[in-house]
C-alpha cells in the first residue's frame, strides 16, 4: 500500500512540477467559468448550479487526456519504465499508483470549481446536498475518464498519440453516442426494433444521461454502476497491456 501511495504522490507532484498541470487547471477553470456565467449566474434565476455540473464532462473530455497522456508513455520513452519494473513492485501496484495519482490531480482540478459555488452562495442559497451529489458524480465520472486515459497511455510511448486516442474515445462517449442516439430517435422516426435497441445501447454508453441525475441530487445505482464498471474494464485492459509488454 505504501509503495502504491509513493507512486501516486510522485504522479501528483510530477503534474504540479510541470506546466501541463497548470495549463490543464487554467483551461478547466476558464470553461467552467463560462458555463457558470452563461447558465447559472443569471439575474433572477434560481441558485441552482445543476447545469454547470450536467455539462461539465464536455470540458473534462478535452482536459483529462492531457492529464493522463504522460502516465505510462513518458516512462516508456525515457526508459524509466526499466527502473520501475525492476523495483520490487507488482504491476498491480504500479497501475494503482499511477491511477490514484492521476485521480488525485483530477480531484484537485474539479475541486477548483468550488470557487463558483462560493460565488453563487453570495447571491443565493444553493442546495448543498445537490452540490455534494454533483461532485460525487464528477468523481465517479473521473474514474472512467482517467482509466481510459491511463489505458491509452499504457499502449504507446508517444504522449500525443495517447492524448489523441483517449480524446477520441471520450468524445465518442461524451458527445457522439448521445448525438447519434438523439438523431436515430427523432429525425428518422422509424421504429425498427434493432434500431431502437441500438439507440438504447448508445444512450446507455453516453456520459451525459448518467450525469443528469447526479446534478439533480439523485443517486441512481444504474449511473454509479455504469461509471464503476467502465473504470474497472479499462483498468483491467491497462493491466493486460502492461503484462503483455513484458513478453515482447
Amino acid at each position: 500500500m505504501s509503495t502504491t501511495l509513493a507512486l501516486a504522490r510522485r504522479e501528483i507532484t510530477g503534474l504540479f512540477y510541470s506546466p501541463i498541470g497548470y495549463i490543464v487547471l487554467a483551461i478547466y477553470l476558464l470553461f467552467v467559468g463560462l458555463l457558470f456565467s452563461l447558465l447559472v449566474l443569471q439575474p433572477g434565476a434560481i441558485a441552482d448550479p445543476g447545469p454547470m455540473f450536467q455539462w461539465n464532462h464536455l470540458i473534462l473530455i478535452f482536459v483529462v487526456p492531457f492529464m493522463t497522456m504522460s502516465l505510462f508513455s513518458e516512462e516508456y520513452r525515457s526508459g524509466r519504465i526499466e527502473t520501475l519494473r525492476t523495483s520490487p513492485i507488482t504491476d498491480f501496484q504500479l497501475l494503482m499508483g499511477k491511477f490514484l495519482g492521476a485521480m488525485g490531480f483530477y480531484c484537485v482540478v474539479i475541486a477548483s470549481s468550488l470557487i463558483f459555488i462560493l460565488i453563487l452562495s453570495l447571491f443565493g442559497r444553493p442546495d448543498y446536498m445537490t452540490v455534494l451529489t454533483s461532485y460525487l458524480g464528477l468523481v465517479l465520472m473521473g474514474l472512467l475518464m482517467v482509466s481510459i486515459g491511463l489505458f491509452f497511455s499504457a499502449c504507446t510511448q508517444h504522449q500525443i498519440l495517447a492524448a489523441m486516442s483517449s480524446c477520441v474515445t471520450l468524445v465518442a462517449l461524451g458527445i457522439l453516442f448521445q448525438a447519434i442516439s438523439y438523431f436515430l430517435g427523432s429525425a428518422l422516426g422509424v421504429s425498427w426494433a434493432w434500431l431502437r435497441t441500438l439507440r438504447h445501447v448508445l444512450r446507455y454508453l453516453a456520459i451525459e444521461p448518467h450525469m443528469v441525475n447526479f446534478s439533480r441530487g439523485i443517486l441512481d445505482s444504474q449511473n454509479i454502476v455504469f461509471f464503476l464498471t467502465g473504470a474497472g474494464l479499462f483498468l483491467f485492459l491497462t493491466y493486460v497491456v502492461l503484462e503483455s509488454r513484458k513478453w515482447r
Partner: protein
Amino acid sequence: MSQPAEIVVEQLTKAYGKFLAVDNISFAVPKGMVVGFLGPNGAGKTTTIRMLTCFMPPTSGTARVGGFDVFHDSLKVRKNLGYLPENAPLYLEMRVAEYLHFRGRLRGMDRGSIKKRIDEVTELCWLSDRKRWPISKLSKGYRQRLGIADALLHNPPVLVLDEPTVGLDPSQIRETRKLIANLAGLHTVLLSTHILSEVELVCRKVIIIGRGKILAQGSPEELKQQCAQRGSGARLVLELRGPADQIRTALAALPGIEQARIISDNAVCAVELSGKLDGAMREQIAAMVQQRGWALREMRSAGASLEEFFVQITDPGAAAAA
C-alpha cells in the same frame, strides 16, 4: 570455484521472433566479486541483464539471483538487486534527495532508514553537495552517479550496472571505476561494458559475449594466456640500427623464433618477432644484437593484450585479415 555463486545463469535464451538475441548462455558470478560482462554493441549484454533484473522473461533457460529464480521469485530477486540501466533514466523534475526518497519508498524501506541511507550513498557517490539540486540541472556525470546511488540505496547484495561510465569525462570515469572497485567484497557486481581497459582495471573475472553466445570467460590473466596460446599472441618488437635483411636473417635463425618480420626500415629498423619469447630468449637476443654491433634502441613485448583477444574472438574475420 570456492565461493558460492550469487548469480547463476543456465542455458538462458531470448528470442525476438526468429532472431536469437541471447543464445543458450550459461555462466556464474561468485559472491562478492566484480565481474565484467564484455561484448561489442548488440552482442546481447543488455538483453541478458534485462532478464537477470526481471525486466523481461527469458524465452527458455533459467537464471537465479541470490538463490531466487528470476521468473518464479521475481519480487524477491528485485528486492536483492540494485540495477543501473543504460543511460540512468531519471525523473528530471525531482530533486536528488527527493528522488532517492521516492526510490526507497518503492523498495519498501521505512523513512528512518531511507534518510540514513540517503546520507550514506550520496557520500559514497560524491553527491553530498548536490542533494538539494533538481536532477534536470545535474550534468551527465552527476546523473550517472545518482543512478549508482539509487542502485546502492537499499544496500542490495547484488548490483547490476549497465555501462556505468558511458558519457562521462575521463576524470569521472576514473572516479566511477574507483567507486565500483570499492564495492567488491561487500556486493556482487555484474558490470556490463564494451570498454576493455575498464574490465582490466576493475574486474577479477571477465565474461565475453558476442552475437548472443558466450565466447570466453575467466580472469583477465587467464584470458591473456589463452590468447598467447592461440599463437598469434605474444610478440616482441625490436628497434635497432643496422642493415635490415641481415638483422632479419640473423634473428630468424635463432632457435625458437618462428617468424621475424621487418615492420619499418628507415634510419632505424623495427623487427617483430614471434615464437618462444621467454626471459632466456630475450637475453639471448640482446646478447646477439650486441655482439653484431647493432645499436639496440628498444625491445618491447606487444600483443597478448585483452584488447587483442577481444577483437580476435568477437570478430574472427577481422583477426584473420590483420
